[in-house]
């Protein structure tokens, strides 16, 4: 939470909770101003009033004042449409740089009425809208363009609504603790994978066959069903995945140091990312070697994500 400079600044531009829990748009956080249409509506009412006075139209006054009252009521409804809405961070899947990072946000409506046409927008994103039924929740997402690898925070975004008449816009600025992991953009094309190295031989597993059982680990979603230890599961234990080692014949090391010297940091990461994807597609066990990080060879979704995350978060200054 950024420190507030003064109570006034705090009031004008409130920084709002970035906690893990839901953010509730309390009454003080919801702002409201007329829209262009609202101003046009006001001008219309002014003209109706002048017409009523000029022609001494009693019913003209009635209509004019009814519409003026409608404007006030619309303001309250618009404001209420947003007030006490609660927002919770939703699921965010990693993306490759250049793609759109889709931040899901869960909107929870604890009130006794439907909230219609709630919009969210961020500086770099087009607005998205959803309806939230009474006592229910709805999911909405903000798609931010990504340019750089690493963690992309959702940052401050805006929840707004102009419902029901479009005369007023109520909004609130919100920050949720939500971020998206952006993998490096894979290099285009298919640069040939490095040849299998002899490192496998050093591990001493050579000769035990390609599919030698290396141990059991906890099951992760995405593991191939063929590798699930079904017998162990039948004994009543939890789901376990069999791990195999020593697929030396098809094992490959994706090594930062072996890339051509004139490659820059991002170019190297792009090449390595492409290789990870290619190796995964070929079902070739692969390991990753970065200046400060090494991922032992493996295969599978989890392994791929580990590698990609390492690449995404690679810090040339040697953070990790």
């Amino acid at each position, binding site marked *: 939470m950024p420190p507030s400079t003064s109570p006034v600044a705090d009031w004008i531009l409130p920084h709002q909770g970035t906690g*893990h829990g839901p953010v509730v748009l309390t009454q003080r956080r919801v702002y409201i101003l007329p829209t262009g*249409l609202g101003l*046009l*509506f006001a001008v*219309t009412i002014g*003209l*109706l009033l*002048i*017409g*009523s*006075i*000029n*022609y*001494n*139209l*009693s*019913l*003209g*006054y*009635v*209509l*004019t*004042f*009814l*519409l*003026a*009252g*409608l404007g*006030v*009521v*619309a303001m*309250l*409804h618009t404001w*209420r449409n947003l*007030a*006490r809405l609660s927002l919770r961070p939703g699921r965010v899947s990693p993306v490759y740089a250049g793609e759109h990072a889709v931040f899901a946000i869960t909107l929870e409506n*604890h*009130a*006794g*009425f*439907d909230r*219609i*046409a709630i*919009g969210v927008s961020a500086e770099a994103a087009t607005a998205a*809208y*959803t*309806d939230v039924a*009474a*006592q229910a929740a709805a999911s909405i997402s903000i798609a931010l363009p990504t340019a750089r690898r690493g963690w992309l925070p959702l940052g401050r975004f805006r929840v707004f609504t*102009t*419902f*029901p*008449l*479009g005369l007023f816009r109520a909004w609130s600025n919100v920050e949720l603790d939500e971020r998206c992991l952006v993998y490096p953009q894979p290099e285009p094309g298919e640069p040939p994978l490095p040849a299998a190295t002899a490192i496998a031989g050093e591990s001493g597993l050579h000769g035990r066959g390609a599919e030698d059982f290396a141990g059991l680990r906890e099951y992760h979603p995405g593991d191939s069903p063929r590798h699930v230890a079904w017998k162990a599961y039948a004994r009543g234990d939890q789901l376990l995945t069999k791990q195999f080692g020593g697929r030396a014949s098809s094992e490959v090391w994706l090594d930062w140091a072996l890339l051509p010297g004139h490659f820059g940091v991002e170019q190297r990461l792009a090449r390595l990312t492409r290789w990870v994807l290619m190796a995964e597609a070929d079902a070739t066990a692969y390991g990753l070697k970065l200046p400060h990080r090494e991922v032992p060879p493996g295969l599978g979704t989890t392994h791929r994500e580990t590698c990609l995350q390492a690449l995404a978060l690679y810090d040339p200054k040697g953070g990790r």
Partner: protein
Amino acid sequence: MSIPVAENLSTGRVVALIGSLALVVAPHAVRIPLWIALIATAVLILRAVLAWQGRGLPSPRLLVMLAIGSIVGIWLSFGMLFNRDAAVALLVLMLCLKMMELRSLRDAVVLILLGYFLVITNFLYSQTLPMALYLLGCVWLITACLVAFQYRSVAPDPRPMLRLSGLMLAQAIPLMLVFFLLFPRVQGPLWGLPQASASALSGLSDSMSPGSLSNLSLSDAVAFRVEFDSPPPKPNKLYWRGPVLWDFDGRTWRGGDAAPRVGRDIETAGTPIRYTITLEPHNMRWLFAIDLPAQRLEGALQTQDFQLLSIRPVRARQRYAMSSYLDYRYGANEPRRNLARALQLPEGFNPRARKLAADLYARSSTPDEVVQSVLALFRGQPFYYTLVPPELGRDNIDEFLFETRRGFCEHYAASFVFLMRAAGVPARIVTGYQGGVLNPIGNYLIVRQSEAHAWAEVWMGDEGWVRVDPTAAVSPMRIEAGIAGAVPAGDPLPLMVRTDSEWLKRLRFSWDAAANGWNQWVLGYTPERQMQMLQRAGFTRPNWQNLAVALMAVTSFVTAILCMLLLARLRRRVPDPVLSPWLVLQAKLTRIGLGPRPGEGPVHWSDRAATALPAEAADRLRTLADLYVRLRYGRDRVKGREVAELRRGVRALRV
């Protein structure tokens, strides 16, 4: 060439908008030239068809040409563009052409605002209660369209939109009432717009020729309504004085050039009766009052012959308090000039009537005897009172007196005054209304155009001007029981004065009472009434500053109440019967450090928590978790029995 329409304007919404706006325009259909009505109808239908078929709209160039064409057409039809009727016609055409340009949300919103404008133009022509209700319905529909265009999702069900629109309008009504009562009123007009001609208004005029009053008698229209402070006088006393006619040219009687009254030659007896008249606009200057009006009115002058003339023609409904004496004597010192005017007759008309008058004069010694013998003539000879008298020629008095003998009050009054003048008795015709119908619902008197009447006043020296009603001699019923009792069966009569069925009469009275209340309290709420109301509310010297303060205060109060009502719904948490016991359960386990971790669902959490609990409690927890998952996420309908079981189980669980 056609241009596609934006996606968010779904067919249903566009057709609903076209339909709502068509309803707003519909009352204008009979007021605008036929060609505009036909073009408007064609354009609306075409636009709806295009929307149904999902086709594109015509190019802007075509629309600009159409717009220019219609402006020229309106200019040719009306001769101008900025009088009321032309402006309304133009507005209708522009609305229809704008329909053809309905491509974006913005266009739709502009159309809706134009629709509100067209609603108010209808009030220029009619402000009756049914019209007000009809247009309120239109506003409801238009507003529902505005709501519909704010939906971002596909929402084909129009009911929530209609409900929300109605709800919001209902919530706006208290604010509307506050503004209506307290917004400082200004008397219009703000600028000199040419007033539309009021030729369609019926009423008395400053001349009377055969047939003019009997035509009026066929009209149902209300002339004015009267509230008496005390019980109303008998019908035969209710002579509502209007134009006084002096000059006769052989066919037409005329009034005019009346001098203001200066003298005070009036003697009265008894207490005056007080009443308040609400006069319908008739585009003339007369303000009606019972003979003889006892007071002057602000903004009106009283003439020598006791007409009340408003300074400006009565173009809006007007309300004034009046008092009258029923017993009076006036005009004993009438100037010679006036008496000479009251004896003037054109030469060369009606020789037989002149001869008759000369005979009467010769036989009588006093003016009163002349009067009595003429009335005896009307009574004795076979004269008939009818609304459909035969046509009369050049010597119309002769023909009426000696041949047809069928006539309406105007014939009797004219013949009577003619005979008086010919016999040397100063006389004049007074027109106005006679009688009126008491509305038992609302307790006021309705005087309709059909009650239009003409009578005579003769000058009798010291007695002054004396009212003589020759019609009463022929048809006493006309004076005692109103026109419906007087005309023969089979004569045409306006619907409103017929007395056929009792319930129909009651219905008509109720309706008129409603219309009267509407006129008095809604349409008649003028700047003066506003100040009167403030006075009654306790302001001793009300001014617009008081109004502004009161307006602000009451508006804030009403808005605050509205706010509270709306917020109440915001805070109201309808407890989920399944979720709330589950939350209690979570709280119980959190207290002993077994609360759910972030992202942990009910199954994982209960499994993990159960491993840390004693066996019995663990079993119970698992059972409760199963039940909860089934109730909350299962496909079956939630059964009250199972919810109760969950609640009991949570309460019983000891950890």
